[in-house]
């Protein structure tokens, strides 16, 4: 279980405060031993200084209002913002620390501009691969001028979402998911209209038959729109994100999550544009799920859940995931599992999902694509370690392929391999 949240202290002493107080105590002991009045007079200010610094610190606690945004193009992640302090003079003694996500690297040293009552900052980071990362608000503390006491600054501070060219399935085309919708005749057609077949209106493809075009709707909207019928709908999709800790380590797990969030965002957009019913779930220690639905609101829900997905501290058992998933989604729904396959139980998860009736497609990013080139190892050893990692991953892929379709995702800038598998059911395993 995650540890319960504890209230942070109103202030805490810094190392320099302990140094002064400890020195004062030592002087006092020597003064007693040597009966030296001068030593006592040295000890008194050293002992009193930390307490005095705490007593004269600003009350109420200093407030810091943060306004920041992410700018930049392509792989450049530039975060600019401003911290405004209340009282304004307190900003002179603010110390600001950012937690940089592991998926982002520092491009250039940060710059900062101290103005009366405000601090402006400019962070230059870089994302070498597609990612969706949530940057936590910075830690802002007030340091007393002597450097003896820290006080955390209060105030509203929202997290920042950094999206760098999230993947999109623009060429998804006709996707045949596992059929979970009933065919006409198997259900009472009155609930969906007089014809019992019409499903909705969608964007027309370039080779759409003229009879399929909805001419009135096309004339109103100014773009080609086509009718879609219930019989053409096949099934629904669940995106399952495996956020459990793996043997790859925290840094690689965070990078995988960044790429997986980007992929999940793109897949969500593509399938919701097709009006497919879509669900989302993330599994760390427990399952967090968004039930099947469609529409823009569902898109907002799922994107919010994708951003909230974090690497869990505890690895939940695979069977718990499958059992919990069955509570939210009917059996037979195509499940797209985003997993690094780094954990020993990743393959077990696929097996349990199959046993619970979920056909699984595993989207597995290449480990090598997540690791930056290492300069500490000689080229020969680097090549050897890469080869061993490749073999280990291939073994896991082979073991997983016995139970599910596996997309070996080498080129992280494209979801073409996934689209290829989705469009051709014969490439999938039953």
């Amino acid at each position: 279980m995650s540890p319960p949240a504890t209230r942070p202290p109103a202030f805490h002493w810094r190392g320099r405060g302990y140094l002064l107080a400890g020195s004062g105590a030592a002087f006092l002991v020597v003064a007693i031993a040597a009966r030296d009045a001068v030593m006592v007079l040295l000890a008194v200010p050293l002992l009193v200084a930390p307490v005095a610094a705490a007593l004269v610190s600003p009350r109420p606690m200093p407030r810091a209002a943060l306004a920041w945004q992410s700018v930049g193009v392509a792989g450049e992640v530039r975060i600019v913002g401003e911290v405004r302090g209340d009282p304004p003079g307190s900003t002179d003694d603010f110390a600001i620390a950012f937690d940089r996500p592991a998926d982002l690297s520092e491009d250039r040293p940060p710059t900062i501009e101290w103005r009366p009552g405000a601090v402006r900052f400019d962070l230059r980071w870089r994302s070498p691969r597609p990612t969706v990362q949530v940057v936590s608000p910075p830690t802002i503390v007030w340091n007393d001028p002597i450097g003896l006491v820290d006080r955390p600054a209060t105030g509203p501070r929202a997290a920042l979402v950094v999206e760098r060219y999230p993947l999109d399935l623009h060429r998804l085309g006709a996707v045949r998911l596992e059929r979970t919708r009933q065919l006409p005749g198997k259900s009472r057609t009155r609930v969906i209209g007089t014809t019992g077949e019409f499903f909705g209106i969608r964007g027309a493809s370039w080779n759409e038959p003229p009879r399929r075009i909805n001419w009135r709707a096309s004339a109103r909207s100014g773009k080609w729109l086509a009718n879609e019928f219930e019989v053409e709908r096949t099934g629904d999709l669940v995106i399952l994100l495996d956020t459990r800790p793996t043997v790859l380590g925290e840094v690689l797990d965070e990078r995988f999550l960044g790429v997986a969030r980007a992929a999940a965002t793109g897949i969500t957009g593509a399938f919701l544009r097709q009006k497919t019913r879509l669900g989302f779930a993330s599994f760390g220690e427990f399952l967090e799920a968004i039930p099947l639905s469609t529409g823009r609101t569902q898109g907002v829900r799922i994107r919010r859940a994708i951003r909230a997905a974090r690497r869990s501290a505890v690895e939940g058992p695979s069977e718990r995931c499958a059992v919990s998933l069955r509570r939210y989604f009917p059996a037979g729904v195509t499940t797209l599992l985003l997993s690094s396959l780094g954990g020993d139980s990743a393959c077990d998860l696929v097996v349990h999902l199959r046993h619970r009736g979920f056909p699984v497609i595993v989207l597995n990013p290449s480990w090598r694509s997540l690791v930056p080139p290492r300069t500490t190892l000689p080229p020969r050893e680097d090549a050897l370690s890469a080869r061993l990692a490749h073999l280990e991953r291939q073994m896991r892929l082979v073991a997983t392929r016995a139970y599910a379709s596996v997309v070996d995702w080498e080129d992280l800038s494209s979801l073409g391999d996934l689209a290829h598998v989705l469009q051709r059911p014969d490439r999938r395993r039953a």
Partner: protein
Amino acid sequence: MAADVLPRPIAEPRAGLSSALLAGAVLLFGLTTGFHWEVALVIAGAGAAAAIALRVISAGRRSDTAAAIVILTLGVLALAAPDSWLAGLAGGVAVLAMLTWLADEPGRVAGGARRALPAVGVVGLLFGVTWVCAFLLPPTRVPTGVIGGLLVAVILLVTSLLARPELIESEPSLGA
């Protein structure tokens, strides 16, 4: 996660008025001790110069080590200090000068010594009271055990305050 701490606005090393104040106070304290004046000047000068140089060269990143050097220098000088009002006054002023010098840190917004004035003032006030009690009041015969007990009580009080900040401050904090 990797922590990126924003740099302070003034990154260039500087040795300003507060450094001169520290050096002068430590040298004055050295001259009031029982050491030969040349030895006292060497000890005080070497300690102050080493601390100032270390802080300037490291642009404030080694300020704690520099403060430890100053405290060590004061301790060595105090070992030979006579039990006189002048030596006591010079020693206390040296510690106050060190606090002012610590407040005027490179890499922080200029004017730290001015902003630290309330804290240094409280410390100076308490030091003044102690100094007056020690040297200007008529001497009385107080048992050493009582003095020792009082001093130990002060140490315990400060230690408990350092260990439990909520005894000073119980205000709800961030996220409460």
